[in-house]
Each structure stands twice: as C-alpha cells, then as structure tokens.
C-alpha cells in the first residue's frame, strides 16, 4: 500500500479545494445527484404511490440520480413557482397547468430538444399540448398529460326523468336538470376560483354559444350578442337546475357531492368514477348497487356554435435556475420513454390522457367502456384564449377567473348585460394594457 502521509494529504486536498474554488462549481458528485420534481397531488392517489415506490427508484437506478418527488394541492403550484423564480431556488422540475408556461417563459430552459424528440417518436402532440407549451419558437415545457373533462352522470336518475341518452344540447340539459333538481338531485358545477373544473366548464360553455374573449387577430370581442345569450341562459339554468352551493366549490367539492349521492351530474376528470371502482363497497346507489355501475361519461352538450371542450392540461417546466439541468432533462427523457411511462399511464385508468397520439391505440382503453370517451380527449380540446393564441395575456385572463366570474356575477343577480360589460372591460385591460 502506498504511503499517504500528512504532507501529501494537505497537498492533494489543498489543490482540490483550489480547483473547486477556481471553477466556482461544486464537485460533480455533489451537484448531479438530485432532481427535485414538484407536481400536484394526483386525484388518482395510486399513481403517486406507484411513482414513489417503483418508478422513481427505477429511474434513480437507471440514471444514477435521486429523484425527490414533492406533491402539493394543484391550487398551490402557482404560488410555489412564483416564489421559486423570484428567489432563484427551488424544485428543478415544476408541473404547470394549462397555458401557465407562457407566464413563466422567461424563467424556463429551452426544452425543445426533449419535447420535439418525444413528440416525433410518439405520433405527434395534440394541438392543445403544443400551443400551451410552445411560444412559436421553442418549447417552454414538456407536455405531460391531459386530464379529460367530461360530465360524469348518474345513468339511472337521468333515465327516471326520461333521458335514456345524455342530453345533447344545453336546452335539453336544462330541462333534465330542472326535473332532477326538483327530485333533490341537482347538477353540480363550480363557478368558484379554482384551477380545473371552473374554467374547463366556463370557457367551452362560452365557445359553444359562439362567444370568445378575442378574435383570431387578438381583438377583444367578448361583449357580443352570443356571449350575452350564454349569460342569460346560464342565470335561469343555474337557478332551475344547479346546486347553488357551487359558487363556493373548489375542485374537490363536486367529487364529494357526487360520491355522497347529492348531485346527478358534474363536469370532472374521471376521478369520481375511478374512486367508485376503488371502493365499490363504500359508494352505493339508493338501491344498494355499487355506484360504479350507475356512472357514465359524456362530453359537454352542444350550443348554437357547436360542441367544445377545454381540458386541464399539465406540462413540466425545467427551471433556468436549476443546478442540475442535465439530470432533469435525462429524467424527463427516461420518464417519457413508453417503456417507463406505460406503468404510470395504466395506473391512471384513463384519468390522464397522454399528450401524444400513439397512446390512443393502447389496449387499456378497451378494458372499460365507461372510460372510452377519454381516449380522444386530446383531439377535442381547445386552449384558453381561443380564438387567439394561448399566450401570456390569455393566461392572465385565466388566472384572474374573469370568464368564470362573468357567469358567477350574473347568477348572483347582476344583470347579464352588466356582467358581460364588466368582463369585457376586464379582458380589455389585460389585452390592451402595458
């Protein structure tokens, strides 16, 4: 064994320390080790468990990294990303909703290489995934999943009031809901300040009447005959057919209300149905049958301008302040490799639709016909800001809940004309402001 005396130790360690100080960088083994990933608390808790127990340890082994997964309430992601950007420190990978990547573009790493490669290898991204994450020049984040928004409804209750098929139009839905509310089973819908179920209802509802916040050229056109019609219809629809507590709901209230048997239908991801699959003995119908046998899914009804959808969309942003950008990129590539993504996708049972088209062919979609409508969720959805681009201004309108509040104000008693005028002015301030 070579002799290693005190003098040599000091020489080597001194040189090493000088090297580290001169390069202004910590040694590689200390900095490349960890990737901090923050995402929402999944509405399918089994998927988070799978990530923690199986997938991430495997990723760690394959990449020589430690992946720290942190999960928070979806409404808390925006405050977290803001404080992380301002302080220049925090998670390496941030899950973001909808078109929020446009808000944080200046703090994102250009991730086009990773995103383009995934899209190309997997049959291409759906349009909504690309416009939410790409500013025309580059990808700001890597599309992760679409949480398809469909109406979950109680089949038997709709049959009782004469609807063997789910209502096709808003008028039919209004009639059915009115009868069901009279029987103590109103429709449940939030018009509160919450990230998912509120805008994924209010935006497509507006579009289906022909209203929109801006036209293709970016001119604010919200105050229109079509928008006014939609608001007028909504005020009566709300009173006659809805659970009026919905004004104060967040994304979890409708799940609880549906599962406790108080509402007949609600726009949601598939989490309600998946929960009834998980606990068939806990959730039952009035006749004692498992509730899962009485739930079906349908897209939102049609309006005068057609049928529209807007799904909650998720992507991951690699932050510019991250000290381990290489590790985080490697992890994203590994995670999106179909070999590894498959287990997570299957655990979602259709709650999340992947962002690329190749997954439509997956055999999981054939296993449960109730979940089949979610397979093509990616093809139907539009992005906030339609008919304009899903840019920063559209993200600002979305996060201020202006469209949702327009309906909320009207159902609270403000004259429809005044509610539309108010919303038009607020949207104009965003689009025409500095």
């Amino acid at each position: 064994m070579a002799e290693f005396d005190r003098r040599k130790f000091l020489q080597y360690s001194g040189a090493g320390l000088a090297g580290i100080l001169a390069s202004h960088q910590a040694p590689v083994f200390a900095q490349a080790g960890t990737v901090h990933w923050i995402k929402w608390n999944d509405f399918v808790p089994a998927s988070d468990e799978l990530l923690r127990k199986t997938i991430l340890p495997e990723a760690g082994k394959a990449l020589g990294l430690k992946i720290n997964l942190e999960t928070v309430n979806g409404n808390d992601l925006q405050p977290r990303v803001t404080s992380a950007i301002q302080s220049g420190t925090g998670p390496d990978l941030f899950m973001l909703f909808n078109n929020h990547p446009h808000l944080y573009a200046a703090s994102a790493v250009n991730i086009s290489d990773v995103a383009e490669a995934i899209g190309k290898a997997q049959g291409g991204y759906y349009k909504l995934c690309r416009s939410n994450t790409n500013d025309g020049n580059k990808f700001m984040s890597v599309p992760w999943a679409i949480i398809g928004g469909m109406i979950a409804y109680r089949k038997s209750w709709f049959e009782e009031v004469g609807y063997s098929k789910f209502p096709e139009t808003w008028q039919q839905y209004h009639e059915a809901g009115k009868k069901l509310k009279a029987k103590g089973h109103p429709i449940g819908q939030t018009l509160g300040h919450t990230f998912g179920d509120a805008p994924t209802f209010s935006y497509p509802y507006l579009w289906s009447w022909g209203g929109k916040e801006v036209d293709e050229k970016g001119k604010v056109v919200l105050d229109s005959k079509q928008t006014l019609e939609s608001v007028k219809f909504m005020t009566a629809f709300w009173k006659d057919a809805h659970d009026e507590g919905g004004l104060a709901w967040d994304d979890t209230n409708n799940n609880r209300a549906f599962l406790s048997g108080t509402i007949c239908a609600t726009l949601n991801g598939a989490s309600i149905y998946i929960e009834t699959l998980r606990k068939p003995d806990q959730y039952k119908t009035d006749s004692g049958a498992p509730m899962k046998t009485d739930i079906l899914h349908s897209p939102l009804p049609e309006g005068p301008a057609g049928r529209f959808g807007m799904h909650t969309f998720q992507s991951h942003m690699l932050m510019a302040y991250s000290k381990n950008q290489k590790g985080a990129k490697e992890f994203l590539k590994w995670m999106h490799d179909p070999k590894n993504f498959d287990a997570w996708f299957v655990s979602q049972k259709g709650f999340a639709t992947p962002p690329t088209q190749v997954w439509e062919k997956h055999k999981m979609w054939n296993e449960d016909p109730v979940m089949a409508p979610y397979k093509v969720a990616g093809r139907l959805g539009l992005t906030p800001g339609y008919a304009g681009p899903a840019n920063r201004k559209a993200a600002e309108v979305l996060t201020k809940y202006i469209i949702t509040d327009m309906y909320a104000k009207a159902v609270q008693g403000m004259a429809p004309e005044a509610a539309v005028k108010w919303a038009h002015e607020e949207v104009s301030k965003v689009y025409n402001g500095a």
Partner: protein
Amino acid sequence: MLEREGALAFWLLVPTLALLTLFIAYPFVRGVWLSLTNAVVGEPGHFIGLRNFTKIFDDSIFRTAALNTFVYTGVTTVFKLALGLWLALLLNRHFRGKAWVRAFILLPFIIPTVLSTLAWKWMFDPTFSVFNWLFWKLSIINSRINWLGDPELAMASIMTVNVWRGVPFYAISLLAGLQTINPDLHEAAAIDGANRWQRFWHVTWPLLLPVTMVVVLFSIIQTFADFQLVYVLTGGGPANATHLFATYAYQIGIGTGLLSEGAAISLAMFPALLLVVVFQLWYIRRVENR
C-alpha cells in the same frame, strides 16, 4: 469606550437596528420600488412611475377589495371590542374554576388560524354544513343556506370567524387592564351612591381607555391586513365578493405573476393604516398626559 453612555447605547441598539433594517425597512423599500416598475415574475422590469397605481384605482375588483377591507375591519372591530369587554368584565368576577375558564377562552386565539379556519370551512361547507344539518333537524330551514356561495353571507361568515378568533385577545388584554384598577375606587364610588352603570362609565371605562386603545390599534392593523382566514374560507370568492387588500394582492402578484401590480395593491393599504396608527398614538399620549 463602553464607559461612554452614548456609545454603549449605540452598540446595544445595533442588533435591533440591523434586524429592523433587514426584515422591515429593506422589504418595505423594495416593495415601494417594485410598485413603481412593471416587473412580472422572472422579469425585473423597469421604472414606470405611478402607472400601477392608476391601473389599480381603475380596477373594479380592487375597489371592491378596498371597500370590503374597510367594512370587514370596521364591523369586526366593533363586535370584538364589545364582546371582548363583556367577557373581560365577566372573567374579572370571582367564581369557581376561574383559571380554567380563562385558559379555555384563549383557545381560539392559540390554535393556528389555518387549522381552525379549516374546521370552520367544514362547518360552512356548501353540501355538508353542520349548521345546515342542525337547522334542518330543528325544522328552522327547509333548504340549504349557501354560507360561502352567497356574496353577503360569505362576507358575514368570514366576519363571524374573525370575531370568534379575535375576541379572546380583546378579553384577556382588557382583563389585564381591569385588574390594574384599584378596587378602592369602585368602593368609594359605591359609597357615594353610584350605581353599577355609573361605576363602569365614570370609573372603569376612563381607566381602561389607554389599554383599550392599544388593543384596538393592534387589532385594526392585524384585521386590515388579514389574509389566511379569507384565503382558506373563500379564496376571495364568490366572484371576488370577499377579496381584501391582502388576498387580492396575493392573487395578482403571486397567482397571476404581476408582481409590481401586487406590490401596488399591498401598498395601497399603507396610507390608511398610517392614519389609524398616528391618530391612535396621538390619542393615547393625550389620555396619558391628562
């Protein structure tokens, strides 16, 4: 050097000064600067003068939030003072288990606000409200009360929780004030023929006034800048009906990422608070010098 009184005083003050500079003065100056720029999250922005302030004064949601803050602070302060004083007078009497009752009274104030507010959120839940269940069982109502979904009821609900949480602070502080009043004064007044009300109004109240003013001052500052309670219960909804300065500043600054505008909204409450503080400190000094 330490023998010179001035120098010693200076060095003893240094840690406090450093802390005040670091945690109060710096964030305040930075907040003022931020409100004069067009900074958004991730982009430092540049100086734009008072444009953020003109923008927020033109913003209908800001005006609602401003009005809400004044109403919220005014109404809750009156209730907290009245109930707190009443409770303090009761607690100042002798009865069995006095120490226990005094300790229990403090509970709402001791429990972390977010925790107790979450419990209230369940009690006001649109679907599962325990109040609705109780009223329905007692046949007082036949349809659900929309506690947090109706604009007026939502405002009344958050005020109720604020009063519930704030009364113990008033009660205990005023009780401490009551105990400093010499019983001889009451005795002398009683001998002179003063009834209960006259003794309260001419003896207790004037002697309690300086303490009351300090308690009200603290309470107004805290209530004016309240955040947690509203954020947890309503998030400022329904349709912005319960936004206060702090919750709206948070939504704009942190939610939407418009940091400079958020800073301007936060600073808008500063002049009002400054006036309150200056008036009350002046009043306390006047009372003390009498």
